[in-house]
Protein backbone atom coordinates (compact mmCIF):
# COMPACT_ATOMS: atom_id res chain seq x y z
CA UNK A 1 0.00 0.00 0.00
CA UNK A 2 2.78 2.42 0.97
CA UNK A 3 4.36 1.99 -2.46
CA UNK A 4 1.15 3.28 -4.13
CA UNK A 5 1.15 6.51 -2.13
CA UNK A 6 3.27 9.57 -2.86
CA UNK A 7 5.99 9.47 -0.20
CA UNK A 8 5.81 13.25 0.22
CA UNK A 9 2.16 12.99 1.32
CA UNK A 10 2.59 10.20 3.86
CA UNK A 11 3.51 10.28 7.55
CA UNK A 12 3.82 7.16 9.72
CA UNK A 13 2.87 7.71 13.37
CA UNK A 14 3.91 5.16 15.98
CA UNK A 15 2.38 4.37 19.35
CA UNK A 16 5.00 1.87 20.45
CA UNK A 17 5.67 1.66 24.20
CA UNK A 18 9.46 1.19 24.33
CA UNK A 19 12.64 2.54 22.77
CA UNK A 20 13.52 -0.83 21.19
CA UNK A 21 10.07 -1.41 19.70
CA UNK A 22 10.00 2.14 18.37
CA UNK A 23 13.38 1.70 16.68
CA UNK A 24 12.26 -1.64 15.17
CA UNK A 25 9.03 -0.19 13.76
CA UNK A 26 10.79 2.92 12.49
CA UNK A 27 13.46 0.89 10.71
CA UNK A 28 10.81 -1.38 9.20
CA UNK A 29 9.11 1.54 7.42
CA UNK A 30 12.35 3.23 6.37
CA UNK A 31 15.22 0.86 5.62
CA UNK A 32 13.29 -2.41 5.83
CA UNK A 33 12.54 -4.98 8.54
CA UNK A 34 15.83 -5.38 10.49
CA UNK A 35 14.75 -8.77 11.85
CA UNK A 36 14.29 -10.09 8.32
CA UNK A 37 11.20 -11.91 9.60
CA UNK A 38 8.40 -10.18 7.75
CA UNK A 39 7.23 -9.09 4.32
CA UNK A 40 9.20 -5.84 4.54
CA UNK A 41 12.59 -7.53 4.93
CA UNK A 42 14.92 -5.81 2.49
CA UNK A 43 12.18 -3.39 1.36
CA UNK A 44 13.23 0.23 1.89
CA UNK A 45 9.99 2.24 1.94
CA UNK A 46 11.86 5.32 3.19
CA UNK A 47 8.71 6.80 4.77
CA UNK A 48 8.87 9.72 7.20
CA UNK A 49 8.22 8.23 10.63
CA UNK A 50 7.49 9.88 13.98
CA UNK A 51 6.39 8.69 17.38
CA UNK A 52 3.09 10.32 18.23
CA UNK A 53 4.55 11.74 21.47
CA UNK A 54 7.39 13.59 19.70
CA UNK A 55 7.21 17.37 20.08
CA UNK A 56 6.88 17.93 16.32
CA UNK A 57 3.70 15.84 16.30
CA UNK A 58 2.39 16.89 19.69
CA UNK A 59 2.58 20.53 18.63
CA UNK A 60 -0.02 19.89 15.90
CA UNK A 61 -2.48 18.06 18.12
CA UNK A 62 -4.97 20.11 20.13
CA UNK A 63 -4.18 19.83 23.85
CA UNK A 64 -7.69 18.55 24.54
CA UNK A 65 -7.26 15.73 21.99
CA UNK A 66 -3.80 14.89 23.32
CA UNK A 67 -5.10 14.74 26.87
CA UNK A 68 -8.08 12.59 25.89
CA UNK A 69 -6.28 10.05 23.71
CA UNK A 70 -2.55 10.07 24.41
CA UNK A 71 -1.50 11.71 27.66
CA UNK A 72 -2.24 8.84 30.03
CA UNK A 73 -0.21 6.24 28.13
CA UNK A 74 2.54 8.77 27.38
CA UNK A 75 3.05 9.19 31.12
CA UNK A 76 3.97 5.50 31.36
CA UNK A 77 6.57 5.74 28.56
CA UNK A 78 10.09 7.09 28.37
CA UNK A 79 9.05 9.53 25.65
CA UNK A 80 12.47 11.21 25.48
CA UNK A 81 14.30 7.93 24.76
CA UNK A 82 11.59 6.83 22.33
CA UNK A 83 11.74 10.15 20.49
CA UNK A 84 15.52 9.94 20.32
CA UNK A 85 15.36 6.41 18.87
CA UNK A 86 12.83 7.32 16.17
CA UNK A 87 14.64 10.55 15.33
CA UNK A 88 17.85 8.59 14.96
CA UNK A 89 16.28 6.24 12.45
CA UNK A 90 14.61 9.12 10.61
CA UNK A 91 17.93 10.91 10.29
CA UNK A 92 19.69 7.77 9.14
CA UNK A 93 21.56 7.07 12.36
CA UNK A 94 19.36 4.16 13.47
Amino acid at each position, binding site marked *: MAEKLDREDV*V*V*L*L*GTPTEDASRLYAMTVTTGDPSWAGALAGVALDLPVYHVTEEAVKA*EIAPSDYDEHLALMAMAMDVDAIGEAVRGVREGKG
Partner: protein
Amino acid sequence: MLKGKKVIALGERDGIQGGAIAACARAAGAEVVLEKTYCFV
Protein backbone atom coordinates in the same frame (compact mmCIF):
# COMPACT_ATOMS: atom_id res chain seq x y z
CA MET B 1 3.25 18.40 9.27
CA LEU B 2 -0.05 16.51 9.68
CA LYS B 3 -2.57 18.76 7.95
CA GLY B 4 -3.44 17.37 4.52
CA LYS B 5 -1.13 14.35 4.92
CA LYS B 6 -2.02 10.69 4.63
CA VAL B 7 -1.27 9.05 7.95
CA ILE B 8 -0.39 5.44 8.66
CA ALA B 9 -1.18 4.90 12.37
CA LEU B 10 0.71 1.97 13.87
CA GLY B 11 -0.30 1.47 17.48
CA GLU B 12 0.49 -1.19 20.00
CA ARG B 13 -1.76 -2.65 22.66
CA ASP B 14 0.79 -2.09 25.43
CA GLY B 15 1.45 1.44 24.24
CA ILE B 16 -0.81 3.86 22.41
CA GLN B 17 -3.48 2.17 20.33
CA GLY B 18 -3.96 2.85 16.64
CA GLY B 19 -7.43 4.27 17.17
CA ALA B 20 -6.13 6.92 19.55
CA ILE B 21 -3.38 7.95 17.11
CA ALA B 22 -5.90 8.06 14.26
CA ALA B 23 -8.35 10.20 16.24
CA CYS B 24 -5.65 12.77 16.97
CA ALA B 25 -4.35 12.73 13.39
CA ARG B 26 -7.85 13.29 11.98
CA ALA B 27 -8.49 16.12 14.43
CA ALA B 28 -5.22 17.71 13.24
CA GLY B 29 -6.41 17.65 9.61
CA ALA B 30 -4.82 14.45 8.31
CA GLU B 31 -6.41 11.61 6.38
CA VAL B 32 -5.84 8.25 8.06
CA VAL B 33 -5.23 5.64 5.35
CA LEU B 34 -4.24 2.76 7.63
CA GLU B 35 -4.85 2.18 11.32
CA LYS B 36 -3.53 -0.86 13.16
CA THR B 37 -3.04 -1.92 16.76
CA TYR B 38 -0.52 -4.69 17.16
CA CYS B 39 -0.39 -7.08 20.09
CA PHE B 40 2.65 -9.16 21.03
CA VAL B 41 1.71 -11.65 23.73
